[in-house]
């Protein structure tokens, strides 16, 4: 994975894992790699990897069971909510670009629906 070195790396790895969880690439209740393995998989500092799990836990997407490791939450509603939230944020970024370009909401909608503009 290529990182943008100007923004926090924990956030970028967290977003990658969140996406995997949101789309079911990592299933509810699935065991996640340990902190050290995560660090090796992404070639990131182990402290950064630990931060990724802390933040995922804060968002209710994973849970650490003492001595057992970290697991994807079994809460399907929580996962659905996070998926929707990620989609909403992506839409906001899109709309902000359209606003900058002076593209109206109607035109933007036509772009999304791939109707000829």
């Amino acid at each position: 994975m290529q990182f943008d070195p100007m923004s926090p790396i924990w956030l970028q790895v967290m977003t990658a894992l969140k996406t995997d969880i949101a789309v079911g690439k990592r299933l509810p209740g699935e065991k996640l790699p340990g902190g050290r393995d995560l660090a090796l998989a992404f070639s990131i500092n182990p402290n950064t990897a630990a931060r990724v799990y802390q933040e995922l836990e804060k968002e209710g997407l994973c849970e650490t069971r003492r001595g057992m490791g970290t697991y994807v939450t079994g809460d399907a509603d929580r996962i659905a909510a996070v998926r929707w939230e990620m989609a909403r944020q992506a839409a906001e970024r899109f709309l902000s670009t359209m606003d900058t370009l002076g593209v109206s909401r109607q035109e933007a909608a036509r772009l999304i629906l791939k109707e000829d503009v």
Partner: protein
Amino acid sequence: MLESKSVTKMFGTLAAVDHISLSLEKGHVYAMLGPNGSGKTTWMKMAAGLIKPTSGQILFQGQPVNIESRKHIAYMSTEPYFYSWMTVKDVGKYYADFFDDFSYDSYLDLLRQMELTEEMKTSTLSSGMMAKLKIAVTIARDAQVYMLDEPFNGIDLLARDEMRRCILQYATEEKLLLVSSHLVEEMEAVADRAVFIQKGKLVENVDLEEMRTEMGVSMADRYRQIYGHTEE
């Protein structure tokens, strides 16, 4: 774990290291950055106990560095330091004789990861293979501090990836890693802290993720900010 207290090293009238006070803690990977001649190597050699400060002192776990601390501090210098008759196996045995904490099993494991074999003669190794061998033999020690001086120099992209993986494997909570590099980008995601040195002086010792969050800059950007308007 390693503390530099107003350390100065004079070479004639030149202060190679100029009153550096710095505290390095275990559980971190530090990138030590600065242009050529900024004093990184000189500081590392003092921390390794190979040369003495002109004034000030470096403490390892509260005690001044000395012969005893060398048992716990693994240092990889930029100079090549194997006899040309040695095979990769000889290098391992030589280290095993020298250092009680050297693990031949770790060494073999690292050789395998770096695609080196015991039979290879050091005199026939390419510069990239030699660089990998130097890393392998250094981190095969079960030391508390690892100081790697310019490990990425003269090494191709793929070998740098392997090397980063090896460094990360040995970066545990109990250990302290200090890596100097001109190739700042190589250390961007591996290090969690950066120590910037300029003309023998400490500029700053920063948490990289904090810096990205608060300033929106990468380690390379910060490097340019600090050194961009001075001579290399």
